[in-house]
Structures are given as structure tokens and as C-alpha cells.
């Protein structure tokens, strides 16, 4: 610790407006303002010294309609950008058809973070450690962005490019994330599991999400696996998915998927764990996520959050 460097902009240059509709927010963003909703990423990030708070801010937390959870025409689910983690972890549709998203939302920060942190802020923060990222990817998440030129839709896999970086333009506001429809026959399950040193207040050191679909005979017919905090972006692991399809979704298959996840991981060494440990944990945590998704696909009840439930399994 040497110098106490000022991380702040000068007070006179700071501005704040509150938007009550999307158009006003986008106009402010076009003029250089950054949107702020719950503040749990932007303000906390500034406090951590990641980046100073932007001089120009536009409050979007009171824009009507952005906090809705609603079905899409295609049978999927549309999650407004202002939907909070507290809502996601308790929403009946999310719990029934997208439980991995509930697993993730239930373990974000404290109850205050969950009550205020929004899905939109989370997604646009593009953190490789965001807990909701892996389940959103596995459920086919698509970002709905509104900019001066209108609305466009981008798959989350194409949105995130690195820590804090995305393909969204600075004047595009995320208004919703849409998820795929669950398989018609219903034999599908999802999960998110995170390595956690403490039972609460953790940040993902290693995480994995999975969606598994079973055929009538119990064979895995579809699988999606994504890993968290193991690369500059959260990403799916095709080899892990391939290792599952056609299997019985049992321990050996899940283990193979875990090995594939570990092979695909590009972990770093830091104060939270060595790269070797993280790689080994990628295998364990992915295995547990897959097994949890399979159990749920089979109709077994695995309580949310799965990180707790699968401890020691």
C-alpha cells in the first residue's frame, strides 16, 4: 500500500438523471451516461478500485415493465433486466423449469445483494465469476438490447468477450434476457453448483451449470454444460456435453463430463486458489452439476441451492 491515489472524478462533472422509460435511458446513454440499477456491481466494483464510478449516471431502477418475469411466445421465459436475484430464486416458473438459475440466484452475495442486484446489471457486468452466467448460457439465454437504432437480440455467448467487456454498444440498454422453452416432454433438469469455502458470501472460484434432457428410456438426449470463473468468459464446453449424450447420465458419464470441463478450463492462480486446484475442482464441480441436473430431470427433488445440497457428494 503506498499512495492513496484519488479514484474519483471531480464532483462538479458528475451528473445523475433518473429515467422513467427506456427511450430516456437510451438517450442519456447516447450522451455518455452509464445505467445504474441496484448498484451492486457498479458501485461495489468502484469501491474495490476496479474502475471509478462513471461521471454521468442514469438511474434505470424505476423504469416500469423491466422487472417482469413472463412467458415468451415460443414457450420460453422472458426475464426483465430489473428482475432481482431475490425474485429469480423464488419464482415458481424458474424453480420448476430453470432451477439452475434459482441455484445461482440464491447464492449471490447477501440477502441485500439479492434484493437489489438485478439480472441486467449482472449480465452487462460480463464478469467471468457471475453465478447466473452458466445457467443462463445453458438455458439458451439471449440478450434483448435497445439502442438508438432500435432493438436487437444477441446470444449471451456472443455478448460476453472478456471481464467487463461485451459486444453491446455503450448506448445499448439491456431490457431483458430470454430463455429457451423447456423440452416439451418435461424430462429435463438444470443446476448450478459453485465451489464455496464459506456457506454464504462467496464469489465463484469455480462454478458449473448444466442442463440435461433425458429420453423416455432415461438416456441423455441433450446436454449443455458451462463453466464459471475458469476462463476470461463463462463458456459452454462442447466436449463435456458430447461426453454425456447417449449415456445413462450416471456417475461415470458425469465424471467424464467433469474431466472434459477440466481440460477446457484455463484457470488462473490467485489468492483464491491455484490454477492446479481450480482445474481439479472444475472436474468435481462439473460432475456435481451434471448429476444434480440428471436427478432433477428424473423428477427427483434436489433443494435449491444445489451448492449446499451437493456438499461432499
Amino acid at each position, binding site marked *: *500500500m503506498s499512495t*492513496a491515489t*484519488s479514484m474519483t472524478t471531480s464532483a462538479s462533472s458528475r451528473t445523475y438523471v433518473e429515467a422513467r422509460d427506456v427511450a430516456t435511458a437510451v438517450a442519456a446513454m447516447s450522451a455518455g451516461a452509464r445505467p445504474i440499477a441496484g448498484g451492486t456491481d457498479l458501485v461495489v466494483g468502484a469501491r474495490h478500485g476496479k474502475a471509478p464510478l462513471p461521471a454521468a449516471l442514469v438511474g434505470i431502477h424505476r423504469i416500469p415493465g423491466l422487472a417482469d418475469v413472463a412467458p415468451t411466445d415460443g414457450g420460453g421465459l422472458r426475464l426483465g433486466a430489473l428482475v432481482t436475484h431475490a425474485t429469480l430464486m423464488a419464482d415458481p416458473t424458474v424453480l420448476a423449469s430453470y432451477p439452475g438459475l434459482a441455484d445461482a440466484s440464491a447464492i449471490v452475495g447477501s440477502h441485500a445483494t439479492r434484493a437489489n442486484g438485478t439480472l441486467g446489471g449482472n449480465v452487462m457486468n460480463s464478469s467471468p465469476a457471475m453465478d447466473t452466467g452458466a445457467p443462463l448460457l445453458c438455458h439458451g439465454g439471449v440478450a434483448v438490447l435497445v439502442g438508438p437504432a432500435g432493438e436487437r437480440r444477441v446470444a449471451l455467448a456472443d455478448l460476453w468477450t472478456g471481464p467487463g467487456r461485451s459486444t453491446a454498444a455503450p448506448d445499448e440498454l439491456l431490457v431483458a434476457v430470454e430463455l429457451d422453452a423447456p423440452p416439451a416432454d418435461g424430462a429435463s433438469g438444470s443446476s448450478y453448483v459453485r465451489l464455496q469455502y*464459506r456457506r454464504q458470501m462467496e464469489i465463484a472460484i469455480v462454478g458449473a451449470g448444466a442442463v440435461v434432457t433425458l429420453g423416455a428410456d432415461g438416456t441423455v438426449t441433450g446436454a449443455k454444460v458451462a463453466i464459471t470463473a475458469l476462463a476470461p468468459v463463462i463458456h459452454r464446453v462442447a466436449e463435456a456435453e458430447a461426453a454425456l449424450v447417449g449415456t445413462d447420465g450416471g456417475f461415470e458419464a458425469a465424471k467424464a463430463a467433469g474431466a472434459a470441463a477440466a481440460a477446457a478450463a484455463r484457470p488462473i492462480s490467485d489468492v483464491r486458489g491455484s490454477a492446479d486446484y481450480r482445474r481439479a475442482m472444475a472436474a468435481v464441480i462439473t460432475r456435481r452439476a451434471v448429476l444434480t441436473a440428471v436427478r432433477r430431470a428424473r423428477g427427483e427433488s434436489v433443494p435449491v441451492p444445489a451448492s449446499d445440497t451437493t456438499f461432499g457428494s
Partner: protein
Amino acid sequence: MSVIDTPAQGSSTPERPRAFLRPDGKEKVTGLGRYTADLTFTGQLHAAFRYADHPHARIVSIDTSRAKALPGVFAVVTHEDVPDVRYGGMTQDRRLFAKEKVLWEGDVVAGVAARTVEIAREAAALVEVEYEVLSAQPDYVANMAPDAPVLHEGWAEYGADENLVRDGNVMSRYVIAKGDADAAMAGADVVVKSHYVSDASQGVPIEPRALVAQWTGDSVTVWSSTQVPFAARSGVAHTLQIPESKVRIVVPLLGGGFGSKCDFHFEAHVAILAKVTRRPVRLVFTRKEEFVAPDHRREGMDIELETGVTRDGRIVARRGRMVLDKGAYTGEGGFFAQMAAMHACGPYKLDTVRVEAFLNYSTNQPAASIRAPTAPQACWALEQHLDEVAAAIGMDPVELRRRTLVAEGDEGPAGQVFEKIGAKETLEAALELIGYDAYLRGELPDDEAVGVACGWWPCFGVPSGAYVKLNGDGTATIVTGAQENGSGSVMGLPILAAEILGMSPSDFSINYQDTDAGPWDMGSSGSQTTFNNGRAVVEAAQEVRAKLLAMGAEKLEADVADLELADGAVRVKGAPETSVTIADLAGTGEPILGKGSGEVPEAAASDASACVGSLGMESFLAPQLITHAARVKVDRDTGVVRVLDFAAAHDSGVIVNKVGADGQVYGGVMMGIGQALTEATWTDEEGRQKNPGLLDYKLQTASDGPRIQIRWIEIETPNAGPKGSKGVGEPPSVPTSGAVGNAIAKVIGRHVDKLPMTAERVWLAANSPAGEDQ
């Protein structure tokens, strides 16, 4: 001896009635109480420090002109602005502002006072310091090599306690020797050697420290979140070269300390800024500063232990070599070598001993008292080592402890003969509470196990003082020099006085934490408030009692011997209707007050000649005995450990304030579990902290808390505190990590040799081939 249990959460056992509510409780639950950072003063300025830019460097020049030129800056001070004196507890090795060298990343080079915090920090960054950068020397073990560059080149000239054995980077060395350990070791049936290493950890009070200084004439008042106001007063007086009568330290409510707010810290820095600006100056630390800047953290330690035993579990020899990281400066931690060596012996019968401990300088953050300094790490190593010894002779580790724990009449490592103590009783109590028999019968799942560890901690007998004065309406005020850290030890003082005066504890107010009001006290350190200040309050109350009885005798025309004090009155024994109220006696205007200190209890005699570098702690005064038992579950594939159930059995003598005592155990055990599993200060290769924040320095949360059961083995301890009490505050963290470590080892088949036993370390130990170093 009596036993009191504190049932765990969900238990249906009725609890002891709790008649006593802490006097500071209401202001704390309503948010109206003031902590130091809640104070504001008209015209106040804000302080910021410029810290060292390198962990080790020679200062070539300091230029403050750009910083001073920044609008809103009122003062920038360096070593040139204060008297050229060094300070420190047992070695005077530090200056307020670095002069020749900086010796760690938190060394203060300059201080700024400015209109806002932001301006002060900006100005601090504008101070231009030219350095000759030197190699950092964070490796405290390597620093004792003969060719290691000496960090304090002028150490021989420093003022120091004459009993310290100093040499180069060795700040102090201590040897405890009993009999011929080498010969005994050679004759032992079995010899076991272990090597354990503990990382540094932190006290982490939830309140970051805060200070405000204001001068009136040539006197200064400093409001400070310190645990030791009188030491802070001495520090200000010494470093600014003014009389103690010109320095007043006031401590508003203190938001925890755990040792990290012991010692004189930053009071003089803020005082000098207030003096040169002629304004009140305020300093509130950020959480990062609270981690990095104080000269207080729990010391890193390298521990080699060797024990020779007979096959039937008699310890014939103990050898040990311990190296402790003192960091850059001594502060008040000069006694650590001796304390660590005592904990390498533990409360056990040892035929022979030779333990050597070194307290070494490094360019790390200084280590000093954190809740039971040196004990949790040394105890963790010793208790795991004992389990290894037990395994080597094929004995259950509990049985080995049964055979070797000390009891009344046994001898300590330097020949102290113990009076009544409850070491063995704590062991049996903890085993019963945790259900050790069920564990032995194999009734737990194979990823769970129970670990047991014992430990000890001394009481510190020092002078202390208090006044008790009666108010005209029959209430009373205790004026004490003692410091309340939150534990309730000061809040419990009225219990002692009320009993003597026949009053209710709620009749008392307490004037505390103000050096101009109360007599000298050591402060909130060494678990000594009830032990020493309780005695002072008792004596002061006795003086008041004598006066009341004399006045009552005159008024009631009775003999003093026939009178008693009860229900707020002096009355004739057996004829309570013949009485005069205390209010009537106190309402005349004649002062009724008492003062006290009481005779300081002394530790039992011992053979200090067997020790090198002895500071008088080779005999433990009124030792507190502890056994902790932990049931843990280990996730073998990840190394993550959860503590599911915990039993804490303590001999702290007679318990004066049970709510307060229980609170110390609950809190201490959780702090101990944190130190066992998740808490460490991680550093880079030059010793800079990498996790100075609460996301990556991981305190245990409420969700991590196990069921905790407490049992007090109450022994009216001779030669101890009031009513036969001992200390309570520090022991609850002492054997905790040892118990957790022994439980982990039973699940994974080997001991984790580094503390904290993080998930990664447990995983490595569980997955590395037997015999291979981790």
C-alpha cells in the same frame, strides 16, 4: 467445584435467569450510542497518510511542497515535524514517521490534514519521496542466517528491556530447559517429529479504527478507538515530549478490538496534525488500511516439535524450535518468544524439556497481540503433534491426554507447581458434550470425525484502579480506568460492587474510558479486566461499605458488627425494620467514596534460572484450562471442511457474569474456526498483502456456525481474581484450530501441516501420496 452448562441452539434445557442487562445495551441497540467515527467537530480537518512505497527502502529525500500547495491542504508533516524519539514496548525501534528507512508497506512517511478526506488522500499521493530501494526480507526464518542483512542496523543502541536476548535480526530469543531433554529423548521408546507452519492472520474488528484530536491551550484530547487508553496516553506524551497531564485519551464506544487495537498507534500522528493546524483533526481508516497499516497482526510461525514417549504414554522429552515473525517493529509483542515456548509445552506433564523460540524481524507488517498471541498457532501444532504421537504408540489420542494433562500438584515446564486446576475435567466434559464415545463406536459417516485439543492461557496480575462514589439519592458511580471492548467485562463491574454494598447492579453508572477520570489500567488486553479491575472495584466498594456501616452505626446507635447492607439500606441483622437507607446517608452532602487497587496476585514460584531470555512468564498465574472438541465433515473431493458440532469446556475459575462469559466462548470459537479454515493474510513475494478486504480475508459467517455447547468447570481458584475467577476472553480461540485439525486428520488420514487449513491445503493433503511433503 461446580459445573454450569450452556445449552446449544434448539436445546430445551432451561437457562440460568439473566438478571443483568449490560448498561451500554440500550444505546447500542437503538443506534444512539457514539463510536469514534460518529463524532464530528466544528472546523474539523481530515487526515490521510502517505505510506511506504516499498517494503524496504532507504529514504533519500521527502518533498512535501506539491502536497502543501494543493488547495484545501492545511498541513503536511513528516519526521522533521516531531521530536526525534523512538518508541516501542520492549524495544524502542520505531518512529512516528519513518526517517532513515521504511521497513514495511504500512510504514507512515507523511501525514496530511485537509478540508476533506478526498483532498487529504490526493495530497498524500503528491508527497514526493525518493528512495534507495533495498531487498525486501519477508522470510523471517531466513532472516536469522548469519549473513542475512540486518534490518535494524542500530538495534544495539535502541532502548530495550534488559532481559531480552537480542542478536542481529533476532528481536528476542527464549529457551526453556528442564532436565536433560537430549538424553531423555535418546532413551525414549518412540520419538515423533513434526513440522508445522502457520500463516499470519488478523484481528479484524468490525469497526475500523478512528481518531479525533483537539488541542485546548497546550493540552490535547484524543478520542480514539483504542483498547488501551493509558498506553496511548503514554505514547503521545513520549513521542511528542509533553507531560502525561497534558494528554487526555477518551474512548467512545469501542467497536471491537481482539487485540488489534492494543498498544499506542496513531494518536500522536493525529495530535501533531491538530497542533500544527490548530484545528480538530479526524482520521478514520478504510477497511484496507485497517488490514495493512496497524502494527498488529497474528504472527506467522514456523514450528518444529519432537516428543519422546514411553509405550504407555509417558512423555519423557519434549524438544522444540519455533521461529516467529515479528515483522518490522516490536510494538508490545516483545514477549512472544517466551509465550510461544510455553505453548509448545502445553498443560502437560513433561519429564524433560528443551524448547527454543526466536522472534525475528522481517519487512512484514509487525505482529503483536491478537487474542491470545502465539497460542492458537502453537497449540494447533502441539495438539496435532500429540495426535501423531498417540498414533505412533497405538493409543487413542484422548487417552494420551488423560495420562499427561496436569493436575493439582503437578509441575509446569519450569518447575511451577500447580494449585487447583481443572484441565482433566475440561477434557472429560468436552468428550461428553461432543459424544466422543459414539464417535469411537464408529457411529459417524466416514467423512465425519471428532477431533480434540487442549490448551492453556495465563492470567496477568497487574495493578489496576477504581473509585466508587455514592450519589445523594443512594445510587452510585464506578469510576474506572478499565476499558470495555464489547465483552462486557467493564459492564459487569457493578455486579461485584452491588453485592458488597447491598445494592442492585442497576443502581450503578460507570464512568470509564477517560484517562483524566479513572486510575491507570492496563486496558482491554490479557483477559485481565475482571481479574484486576474487578479486584480494584471490590476494594473500593469495601471502603464505601466501611464508611456506610460506620455512619449507619452512629445513626442507628448500633454496633457495626451487628449491621448489614441489604436492599439499599444499612440495617440491623435480624431486625431489618431498624435501618437507614443509603440514600439518607449519602444525601447529606458529605462525600462517600472509596478507592481501590487491591493486592496483585503473583504467579507461583518457578525455576527461571532454567530459562534464557525470561520475561517472567515461565510460571503461569492462575492458568485457564481449555478443551475443545469439534465434529467436522470433510468434502474429500474439494477439501472444504464444515464444522458441524462443537464443544467447549473451560476452567476459568468462578464465572462472575455468565452471559458475558458465554459470549466470549461463542465469539472466540467462531474466530478460532475462521483461523483454522479460512483466515490468512496472503502476501506477495515482497510481503505486501494481497487480500486486505473482507471478500478475500474470509471471516466465518452466521451460516458457517456450528452448534456450540459450553461447559464451565467452576473452581474457586486460589490466588486469582474476585471470587476465585480467572480471565475468560482469550482462551476460547486457543485450542480451536487444533481440535478442527485433529478431526480433519482423522477423516483424510494425515495432518494438514499449514494453518489455515484451507480447502486447497486439505485437498492436497487428502490427495497426495503418503509420506510425500505437501
